């Protein structure tokens, strides 16, 4: 394995470069995935059948908390990558840990939000609108859940193996993933919640 020391660790081998490019392309596919969900959401937005409309069920408080928490986690993972670049393994682990905790908190609030929808009678079966709402949120939530496990594994690997080209590469790719989820959330926040509450 040739290691190019003039490059940051996560870019230092050919395989690493390919991993990162591959992941960018994967994110392209993810953009299409969420774009399809958003398009469907806009189509179904007003098709509420006998169920509630968005404005009737959305609560601003949990959504603001979720947004704030996820944005912060995006910032902390940025710090983690910065720490990685300057070889501060411990700081990096701390920031990664904070990121995951924030992610878990986000997920907790989202689960609370879902139970709230359930209680006010907005379930998957209620109407096309509630179904697409829960599917869109759920797909994002499932991505966050997956990210929690993934991040956890990366933390364990860094603790065990230290910062190697591989672990650095994985961490960097994970940070791309996490930023991406944040971007998707900003879209959800603006086009689902804000638009719905207007």
């Amino acid at each position, binding site marked *: 394995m040739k290691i190019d020391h003039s490059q940051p660790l996560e870019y230092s081998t050919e395989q690493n470069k390919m991993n990162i490019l591959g992941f960018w392309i994967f994110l392209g596919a993810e953009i299409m995935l969420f774009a399809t969900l958003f398009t*469907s959401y806009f189509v179904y937005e007003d098709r509420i*059948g006998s169920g509630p409309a968005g404005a009737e069920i959305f609560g601003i408080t949990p959504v603001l908390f979720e947004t704030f928490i996820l944005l912060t986690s995006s910032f902390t993972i940025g710090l983690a990558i910065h720490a990685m670049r300057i070889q501060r393994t411990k700081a990096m682990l701390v920031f990664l840990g904070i990121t995951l905790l924030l992610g878990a908190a986000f997920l907790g609030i989202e689960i609370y939000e879902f139970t709230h929808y359930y209680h006010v009678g907005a379930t998957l079966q209620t109407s096309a609108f509630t179904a697409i709402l829960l599917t869109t949120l759920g797909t994002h939530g499932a991505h966050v859940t997956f990210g929690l496990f993934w991040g956890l594994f990366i933390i364990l*690997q860094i603790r065990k193996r230290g910062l190697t080209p591989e672990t650095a590469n994985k961490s960097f790719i994970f940070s791309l993933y996490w930023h991406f989820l944040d971007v998707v959330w900003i879209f959800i926040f603006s086009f689902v919640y804000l638009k719905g509450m207007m």
Partner: protein
Amino acid sequence: MEFFDRFAVPHPSPLIYASMVAIGLTVMAIILGITYFKKWGYLWREWLTTVDHKRIGIMYIISALLMLFRGGADAVMMRLQTSVPDNAFLDAQHYNEVFTTHGVVMIFFMAMAFVIGLMNFVVPLQIGARDVAFPRLNAISFWLYFAGAMLFNISFVIGGSPDAGWTNYYPLASTDFSTSVGVNYYNWALQISGIGTLMTGINFIVTILKMRAPGMKLMKMPMFTWSALITNIIIVFAFPVLTIALLMGTFDRQFGTNFFTSVNGGMDMMWANLFWVWGHPEVYILILPAFGIYSEIISTFSRRNLYGYNSMVSSMAIISLLSFLVWVHHFFTMGHGALTNSIFSITTMAIAVPTGIKIFNWLLTMWKGKITFTVPMLYSVAFIPLFTIGGVTGVMLAMASADYQYHNTMFLVAHFHNVIIPGVVFAMLAGLTYWWPKMFGFMLNERIGKWAFWNLAIGFCLAFFPMYITGLDGQARRMYTYSEATGFGPLNMLSFLGAGIMAIGFVLIVYNVYYSFRHAPRNVGDDPWNARTLEWATHNPVPEYNFAITPQVDSSQAFWDSKKHGYQLFKDDLKDIHMPNNSGLPIIMAGLFFIFGFSFVFFIWAGVILSGIGILACMAYRSFEKDDGYHIPVKEVKETEEKFGGAKK
């Protein structure tokens, strides 16, 4: 026993029972045979766990051929059923299942697999790479495809086949109207193999962008590699749409949501839209690699460079863009008004321009050439006129007002078979014959190959041209029978005869493989076709490391230049070669995906949860695994090269 009732076939018939027995016997025979010849170890080590792009490619192609015969049997059954009026060979329900599985199997599990198989085998060789960018992921892609294909294929003996057409329009596909688990199979089989395809897309884009031999600029790539690159870009952008559509369909059928129903805000047209937003690009996912293959073959057997290389590339790029902008033409009759239809009518017809450029470029490639009619070239030469007919009928269909009369008729069926068979199937057979010596080190028999070709070409014309007429005469597609008074009888009989002739052609191809395996000479050399592109610069069959020395390239037909102009391809010395390790993980994961899909189809939640945990465990294992591959020492490379008749210089 109540648990097992769900697996019963809802519409049994002697035909299905016979297939059950046949499947059981074949599986037993295969298992016994492998055990008897003590081949389990070999199979596991060399094939099931392989990450070698060449072997994965070959496994794709074998699976595609198997699926071709499954889908082909369906086709012959359909043509037999409609060959005479009021035929009672199949009843309506069975006919519906047969044309549904025919469509799905042929598109997803035959054509896609064939295309991806050839890409797998050829692309890394054409760009002078050791393997693809992510060999392990490549194996996962294959096994996911395979799991999906198997899941789909067991539907007709366990629980019932889907019966809503390969387009699976809702609300027909909803639980209200399609009561068996068939459409659940459709959703999960396509979902699983679709994930595999998406991974292939990512893998090949990175491979082509990052792993080209030194000197091979983008505009110096062989045309097949170009077509593969563009195809994979389309895959990455189109397949997520299908993923979501299938997910919504699954939710509707299995969790009672109202996406595509007629109540509580559901909208049945939404499925049609999502399906075709994926579905039209899918057409080009199939045809662009075929264009690439024809470009290679026509150039090789005309002894000329490809005419208009730049315009070939840009026309493919334009086609790929347009492919996302035409999906509404699949349902002009849905009533979105004249304006929408006019717009999509124009975008659709616009595709004819870049396609026309390609046709003329191929003609101009042959112009002033020195044409030899080998089997691959025969397919390519037949492709041009037949595909032109398919293309111009496509333009006819694109005229919205006229489409109101063609839509849903045999005219449409004739058109898309007219582009897919001479376009895709002929290309795959041509490519398979062309690269066969690369794969196995011997050539397929030309004489039998020509017989097969003529059967296919003539059978095709007989089978599909009459459908243009019956379509215009009012024969809707997917009718399991018709009355004598309609007068469709004679032309449908002609179609059946054509289908029979095509079937003979396919059998001849199989016979050719057997015959050539037994009798063909093994010393064909490394360049039996006098070819032009880089994949022919290594040995036949290709050693596991592809190229002993990484080639250096200066044109799109580097190998030709090295033969004719003495260009030096291999300038370095032999070095240790780094190779990826084999892994059992892909096949195990795919097995778990199969169980996951199967359990989901039948609402067996325990199976869903357990296999789901298993899949995640595999990913976790992979995350912690340290796998740096291994090195083939110089000495061993040297020995291998000697065995193939000396190192290439």
